[in-house]
């Protein structure tokens, strides 16, 4: 440990592992440390099942849960958008070769106490039970507009300037009612609240296109999920970092981040050992005096032995409950994965409900989600503080990631990572630095 590094990365959550990989690939000498003896931090998948029960101080699971080792339970539920940033990072870094994925089978939206499939193309729009006859036609016209829209071709904008006019204006142009606006903004554009209505329409159009491009990629739904759980993702990026020379130490307590003259970081101390460095990259848990609480997220892990009712027995699902449907300011997300993803014993499913906390009694807030699940065998609730760094890190050279938010996918995760990388290195990540010939050689 007593060496000098360009960067020391603390914590092996997904964001830190992606950063570690990108830094190593860029030729930096990296030391990557975690105080835990396992990879993943908050983005680990817990295995075996007994450990999950212990974590939540529940009595040990009985034999109906099958072999504990067959379970890999995520603590933070998320899916990958098939055409999103994380998939691009996985493919360009070659990390994808360590992982296998499955498409999520169903994407649903909640309306008036029941769930409906999210309509994404003209055919589905016309068949959907979310809208009446005339509204379906208007929604269909809107979808065609978005589909044909090209940001670099004003002819496709049809007398509407999406860079200056807001999204409410575009909805009004097509005469869409509140209900349709609701599922378009929340289930297709994946906004968590309604602030987007007053933002330039281009942002929402881009997000709807991401949804439909993702859907076009593998079918069924725009979401992907890795076999063996989300905890595989940080491990994959850690391996990338190691291949490019990164050094890994787990189970290593960090006692101090050593700061020198001018408040700049000079090293990291563990016991009596000090590793020198020019920069530190870490998650909020390693620098509690340099982060502030931004809010809280509630997540509820439910173990169930059946699919979610009214989803055509889908073995994986996402359900979005738009805020207005349940008189809230932020959406509730329900996700379901199962034994087919090697995250549960045969016949078992893991449902997760998550949302941003808005009241003193968050468990009541997630009730609309719980009510959709049918009988629940075991329930674990956690409420986590959501932190953000108090500064950009440019002066101290300590770059801190934000906690994982309540979004149902990894887009904000990737934006944070790419932004931190840019702040830390002064440049955008150059994918051409990845030498593909380093591996995967066909003889």
């Amino acid at each position, binding site marked *: 440990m007593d060496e000098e590094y360009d960067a020391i990365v603390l914590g092996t959550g997904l964001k830190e592992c992606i950063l570690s990989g990108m830094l190593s690939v860029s030729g930096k000498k990296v030391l990557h440390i975690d105080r835990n003896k396992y990879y993943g931090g908050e983005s680990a998948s817990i295995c075996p099942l007994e450990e999950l029960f212990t974590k939540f101080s529940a009595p040990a699971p009985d034999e109906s849960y099958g072999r504990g080792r067959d379970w890999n339970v995520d603590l933070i539920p998320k899916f990958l958008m098939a055409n999103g940033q994380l998939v691009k990072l996985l493919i360009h870094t070659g990390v994808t*070769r360590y992982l296998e*994925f499955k498409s999520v089978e169903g994407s649903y939206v909640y309306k008036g106490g029941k769930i409906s499939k999210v309509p994404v193309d003209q055919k589905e729009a016309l068949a959907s039970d979310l809208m009446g006859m005339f509204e379906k036609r208007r929604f269909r016209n809107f979808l065609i507009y978005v589909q044909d829209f090209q940001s670099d071709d004003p002819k496709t904008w049809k007398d509407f300037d999406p860079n200056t006019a807001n999204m409410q204006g575009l909805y009004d142009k097509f005469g869409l009612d509140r209900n349709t606006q609701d599922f378009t903004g929340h289930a297709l554009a994946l906004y968590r609240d309604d602030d987007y209505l007053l933002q330039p329409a281009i942002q929402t159009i881009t997000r709807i296109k991401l949804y439909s491009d993702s859907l076009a990629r593998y079918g069924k739904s725009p979401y992907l999920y890795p076999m063996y759980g989300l905890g595989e993702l940080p491990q994959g990026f850690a391996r990338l970092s190691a291949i490019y020379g990164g050094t890994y*130490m787990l189970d290593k307590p960090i006692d101090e981040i050593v700061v020198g003259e001018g408040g700049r970081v000079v090293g990291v101390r563990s016991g009596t050992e000090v590793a020198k460095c020019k920069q530190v990259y870490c998650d909020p848990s390693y620098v509690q005096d340099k982060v502030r609480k931004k809010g809280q997220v509630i997540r509820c892990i439910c173990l169930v032995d059946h699919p979610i009712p009214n989803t055509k027995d889908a073995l994986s699902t996402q359900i979005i409950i738009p805020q207005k449907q349940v008189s809230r300011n932020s959406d509730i997300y329900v996700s379901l994965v199962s034994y087919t993803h090697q995250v549960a014993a045969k016949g078992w499913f893991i449902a997760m409900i998550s949302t941003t906390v808005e009241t003193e009694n968050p468990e009541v807030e997630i009730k609309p989600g719980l009510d959709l699940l049918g009988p629940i065998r075991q329930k674990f609730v956690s409420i986590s503080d959501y932190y953000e760094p108090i500064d950009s890190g440019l002066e101290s050279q300590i770059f801190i990631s934000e906690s994982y938010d309540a979004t149902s996918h990894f887009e904000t995760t990737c934006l944070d990572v790419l932004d931190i990388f840019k702040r830390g290195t002064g440049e955008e990540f150059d994918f051409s630095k990845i030498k593909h010939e380093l591996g995967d050689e066909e003889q």
Partner: protein
Amino acid sequence: MENMATRTQTAQRPNGSAQGKICQFKLVLLGESAVGKSSLVLRFVKGQFHEYQESTIGAAFLTQTVCLDDTTVKFEIWDTAGQERYHSLAPMYYRGAQAAIVVYDITNQDTFGRAKTWVKELQRQASPNIVIALAGNKQDLANKRMVEFEEAQNYADENTLLFMETSAKTAMNVNDIFLAIAKKLPRNEQASGASASGQGRRLAEGDTGARAAGSCCK
């Protein structure tokens, strides 16, 4: 359920006659730093040897095939990428591995002790059907030997491991140990345990439209 993703496919010759099966297996390397893990792989895959092999850059994910009767066995070989140094190998590394080579240096008794620990780790973490081979590397330095052949052979026999002394430098037994592993691996889908052909899909650039699960197989 274990992920025994044996990929079996039937290759076609240009004239259309069946050439036999291609089976793909994940093989992981384990052992202390500097016992010659990467050198063994580079010798096997590229026929090269470098006296001062940089520690694990370059052999992180290589493939090589061996032919057995009517079957082509394709090894997908994972190197530790140095993550063994501070005992920080990820569970992902063992996941779905159908074969492992545990390497020690015959001139260093400590590395043999560590090899035994790695074997235990495999028995704990990896699939129960994994084929494990023990390789006593640096046989070209036999005049500095600290681990007796018989001692290692007895240990291997007790634990039903394949065993050979190898030299990445002279190429001695390098192909042979991979071939011996290939012979012990199940070459049909039934024998491979679970539902075979990778239950998920690998992502690739330009993927469009839904493809069958287990992309490269079936």
